[in-house]
């Protein structure tokens, strides 16, 4: 029994984090939002070279979660959950190039179908190539969602569960980022002659975010070690709640500057809002947990 990351896992997470820290990912996300995919595609290639697209088939869910936590922390745009979690699990092989997928009813539209080499539709009989329809904007400006022709309900299988878990990890990373940036901000911002971070009204809110994230994290890595539907849903609910608390608190302690699109915080606030209901709403996952508890 050792619930600590191994040295190798830690080194992998650190190298990914330093790569992304120097990649100006906020700018990449802003360009992606405006339809300029070039910087994002270049970053995709670099991350694929680091092995991110083969983790689902070649490594364990722990490495998948480490990667998605980093993607969330740095707000990396693109259909990563689709191409690096769902599809390789469903297809049994690493995806060549960029692919995306619609998985109704929980992910009914294909994310970023305009950049994908292949667009799939998951249904009761497996994967088919999708016919892409209308494009929709998201609260997360870097997410573009495309209608696909109506299909049946896709199963809640291992591919679905890994996509849910990857989304949970992304929420965890995004929540950690908002907390870190908020702590930095309240240490600089002064009002009434002192840093606003010295007031308990601010401290206690940020402490609650720290607590929520600290207790969400083990559910992600616990689920990675034993990805049962219940464990995966537990991770998604707790990470969604914790990241959403981080985003609401982060916005509040930043005040008006946080409410601007120009300030980078907006990228994470909007991403978290989108991911909370992506790959199964909190209500769906809570119901799935309750069903499994009552049946047990």
């Amino acid at each position, binding site marked *: 029994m050792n619930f600590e990351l191994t040295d190798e896992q830690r080194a992998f997470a650190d190298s990914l984090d330093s790569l992304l820290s120097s990649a100006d990912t906020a700018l990449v996300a802003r360009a992606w939002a405006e339809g300029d995919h070039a910087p994002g595609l270049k970053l995709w290639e670099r991350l694929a070279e680091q092995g991110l697209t083969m983790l689902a088939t070649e490594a364990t869910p722990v490495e998948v979660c480490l990667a998605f936590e980093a993607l969330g922390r740095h707000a990396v745009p693109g259909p990563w959950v689709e191409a690096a979690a769902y599809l390789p699990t469903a297809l049994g092989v690493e995806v060549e190039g960029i692919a995306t997928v619609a998985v109704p009813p929980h992910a009914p539209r294909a994310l970023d179908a305009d950049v994908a080499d292949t667009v799939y539709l998951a249904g009761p009989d497996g994967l088919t190539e999708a016919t892409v329809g209308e494009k929709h904007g998201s609260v997360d400006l870097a997410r573009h969602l495309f209608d696909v022709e109506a299909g049946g309900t896709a199963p809640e299988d291992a591919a679905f569960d890994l996509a849910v878990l990857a989304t949970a990890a992304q929420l965890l990373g995004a929540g950690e980022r908002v907390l870190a940036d908020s702590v930095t901000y309240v240490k600089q911002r002064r009002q009434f002659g002192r840093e606003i971070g010295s007031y308990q009204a601010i401290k206690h809110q940020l402490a609650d975010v720290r607590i929520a994230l600290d207790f969400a994290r*083990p559910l992600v890595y616990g689920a990675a070690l034993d990805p049962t539907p219940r464990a995966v849903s537990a991770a998604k609910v707790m990470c969604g709640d914790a990241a959403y608390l981080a985003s609401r608190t982060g916005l509040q302690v930043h005040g008006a500057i946080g409410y601007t699109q120009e300030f980078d915080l907006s990228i994470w606030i909007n991403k978290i809002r989108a991911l909370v209901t992506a790959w199964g709403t909190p209500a769906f996952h809570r119901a799935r947990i309750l069903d499994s508890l009552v049946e047990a």
Partner: protein
Amino acid sequence: MDLQLTESELAFQAEARAWLAANVPSEPLPSMDTAEGWRLHQEWEAKLTADRWSVVSWPKDYHGREASLIEWVIFEEEYYRAGAPGRVSQNGIFLLAPIIFDHGTKEQQDRFLPTMASGEKVWAQCWSEPEAGSDLASLKSTARRDDERGGWVLNGQKIWCSRASYAHWGFGLFRSDPSAQKHAGLTYFLFPMDAEGITVRPIAQLDGEAGFAEVFYDDVFVPDSDVLGAPGDGWRVAMSTAGNERGLSLRSPGRFCAAADRLVDLYRERPDARVGDRVVDAWLKAEAYRVYTWGTVSRLAEGGEMGAAGSVNKVWWSELDIALHETALDLLGPDAELESRWLDGYTFALSGPIYAGTNEIQRNIIAERILGLPREPKGAQR
């Protein structure tokens, strides 16, 4: 990274489970804060001790079995899953014992630990004073040097002393050097509750039982042999193990997991879809605490320290305990107000965010020591 138990840990788990199944009383004991309940809880402690289950992580010389931290967590989980009684000796074995192990003399260890482990002597924590709660270091009760008799003379008043209504011994901090700065000049004392000059006034708690008491000290003599650590060093002695893994800060998940399981059982008996999400959320909090604790235990086993993470822990378990019991009461509907184990648990849970450092103090610690936020300017001091 793995969550697998070793064969010897599994064997330990099986042994604990079998012993508990054979020995846990089938009916819950009366409250430990009644005369009859107190006696029965002491008897239960003696039974645990006879088979070395009362303090599994302690040395063999003191009734322990030198269990690892992981085994201790396993034992706690089994203990509460089996519905075993609350621990009347917990202030001693979880709060005081770590300090005696670290700062006590061999003579003190030999004299105090065996009877503490067996429940023969139950200890009360005499910590707060009427004017010193969260701001504990502002305490005013005094210890005056008595060279002639070789000891100290205590005067003053302590309050909210858990178990003091029936306890045999107490422990607390007293101001031994009135000229020293706030945290300096405090000394850690151990004293029999029936010492001359001690008056105990039980205080009825929210549920009507005398779970804590007020304690008055009127020229109470304590010999040097009952001072814990060096005179004047009491604050450091008390705080050095405040975040210790054997302390209350690492509260084992067992009790909460057992309550979460019972909550799910209750939902099966009385399903109410309107409360379903809250059942899930309460269960999730307990599950998160269970898995989180394996991380803490792994870190401590590798030589890491609890530090301010103890505050993160404390806020979480105290609030999750309330969430579990509130949800159960909502499921019970009109029966919720009737006497029941859930109601007892609820009333007890309400004290969690207050004792062992209020959750507001814990949030200050998290903000200042973990997030690195600036300290708030302190108000005027004595």
